[in-house]
């Protein structure tokens, strides 16, 4: 048996080697920084420079080094095509790293918006659909309302339409009430509700302000109707914010400008209850086509504040959008973890705001980057146990 000689392993490098390595590391870092630009710029750093042109997207030219020093400049990463705003058609097959990169060409909270994204364009629409009665009998019904969020003195109109074989029929309401939901103690108190018939539609109006609630509440509306051959129950919920529980209001004061290649609209907010806020808005271009949505996600102190609505430059460039832009569906809520409900709604902004004119070329087409994104890329690069959608090619999942 031949004994194999063990190669000599140097556990600790010499001090000279370390010094050389450190110098090389510093040089490479500096070169990377200059060739890629400030990564925080692409993430939308918050230095407002009103109406100044965006920095050029291309990195500045670097003078070629002289002498015999080896060039260590990293190659720029290949461009990644983002996932379509409306989703990937068919079955996705990207490996987790590729999928993450494609999902993060834009920031998580500032992304493209198309006219088909009704959840964002009509944030207070309801989603009930026509149902068949439990016992069948050719009976279908739709129990719904005109909104989901009700604020202060607003009212909610609940409607019930019952059909037999597709034709509206008259029914007898055997129960109709609403109740403030109590997910902890379950002490709901039914409040009778009266429905009136309007051309085959049963309708009832609820004015929650009369309940004198102190804070955000979920309210359930319940009906039981007799259609002749049987009875059917149905219920819907809605969210109510009493005037006393409104956490903040939009002031209607706005300021728009360019910030590191992105459009930023500073929305004035009068904060009553400090804390973490989620504020959403949509952006329409000069032809009133939706081009982007954004979300402010941060803490606001009490008093007059500003929520920065960042519309990422590349989103606007990729949409070939130009202004003046119009802000739409501005709404928000205070997040109150530990309470139920935990989202206290702000009254949506019902006015209009139009920005100054902007050309598409005013915005940066740089891809989003951040330390968090780079950390995720590192982690996913080093983990190969999970293949996600890419596993379709090897696993026996079908």
């Amino acid at each position, binding site marked *: 048996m031949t004994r194999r000689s063990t190669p000599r392993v140097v556990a600790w490098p010499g001090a000279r080697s370390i010094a050389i390595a450190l110098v090389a590391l510093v040089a490479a870092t500096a070169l990377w920084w200059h060739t890629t630009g400030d990564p925080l710029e692409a993430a939308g750093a918050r230095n407002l420079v009103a109406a100044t042109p965006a920095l050029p997207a291309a990195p500045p030219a670097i003078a070629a080094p002289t002498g015999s020093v080896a060039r260590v400049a990293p190659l720029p990463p290949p461009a990644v095509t983002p996932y379509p705003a409306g989703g990937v058609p068919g079955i996705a097959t990207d490996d987790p790293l590729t999928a993450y990169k494609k999902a993060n060409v834009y920031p998580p909270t500032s992304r493209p918006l198309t006219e088909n994204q009704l959840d964002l364009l009509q944030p207070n629409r309801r989603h009930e659909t026509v149902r068949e009665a*439990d016992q069948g009998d050719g009976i279908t019904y739709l129990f719904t309302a005109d909104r989901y969020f009700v604020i202060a003195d607003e009212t909610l109109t609940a409607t019930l339409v019952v059909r037999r074989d597709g034709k509206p029929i008259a029914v007898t309401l055997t129960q109709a009430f609403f109740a403030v939901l109590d*997910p902890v103690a379950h002490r709901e108190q039914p409040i009778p509700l009266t429905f009136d018939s309007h051309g085959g539609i049963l309708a009832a109006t609820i004015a929650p302000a009369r309940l004198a609630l102190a804070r955000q509440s979920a309210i359930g509306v319940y009906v039981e109707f007799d259609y002749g051959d049987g009875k059917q129950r149905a219920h819907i*919920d*809605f969210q109510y914010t009493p005037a006393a529980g409104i956490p903040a209001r939009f002031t209607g004061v706005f300021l728009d400008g360019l910030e590191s290649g992105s459009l930023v609209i500073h929305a004035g907010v009068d904060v009553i209850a400090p804390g973490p806020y989620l504020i959403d808005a949509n952006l329409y271009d000069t032809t009133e086509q939706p081009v982007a949505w954004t979300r402010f996600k941060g803490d606001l102190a009490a008093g007059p504040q500003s929520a920065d609505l960042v519309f990422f430059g590349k989103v606007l460039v990729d949409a070939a959008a130009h202004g003046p832009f119009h802000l739409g569906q501005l709404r928000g809520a205070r997040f109150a973890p530990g309470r139920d409900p935990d989202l206290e709604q702000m009254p949506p902004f019902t006015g209009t705001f139009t920005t100054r004119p902007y050309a598409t070329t005013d915005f940066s087409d740089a891809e989003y980057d951040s330390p*968090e994104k780079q950390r995720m890329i590192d982690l996913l690069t*080093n983990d190969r146990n999970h293949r*996600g959608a890419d596993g379709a090619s090897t696993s026996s999942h079908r």
Partner: protein
Amino acid sequence: MHKHLLVAIASLAIPMTASAGVFDIHVGGICSTNFGDTLGHWPGETSINAPIDQRDSMATATAQMAATLDTYCTGGNLCYVYVYSNGGAVMSRTLALFNRSWNIGYVAASASNEGGSEIGGTGFVGEVFGGCTLAGHIGTSDHRNGWNHNDTHGIVTGMIAGNGWLAPFLQSAILPGHDDGAVSEASAGGYTTTTGRSSICEAAPKYANHQAWFSCEYGSLNHLDMKLKMLCNDGGLTGCK
């Protein structure tokens, strides 16, 4: 002193991921308090049965989900999150509401109730799910209006859906399009409206970063069959239908 300097330099050279743990978080469905006894397992990783109480309140479940992610998915750790049924809604809501830097490779969702179920609020709910307060408040308007489903922290959600018969119930007459007896493919496929779908590959608007994985639908699998299917598909379990 010299040795201490060398140690410090050496530690700087160690990548953050060298000591990283990978955690596979499992989140159960409506009326559950955890995923159950069967988890997926991947070599060298730790499977977590997330203690999420989905009996009373989405707010409670969301806070517990965030606490779980805080425990396992920060620093140099990496998580993969496997959600079933209403667990998909809990995870989506947690990502949308919180503003924390969790390291999540992806969310893998089986039969997700992210878009709410049309049977929420009917007598069927208790029979299918075992009965609990929250089961009556996971309807389509509750979930679709409840949070911005497009804010996923940039995390991809892979989805699979079934179209099997959940005997002896008749929910398929209530749910639009194809369904697994408890949730429609409009919900399980991450679509932005409740319009009935005949598969989760159908071209229609979906929430950002939501996508179909592995199959356009599992025609013979019902809601209960779907629970472990994603774990099998992703290599963490064997023996699924």
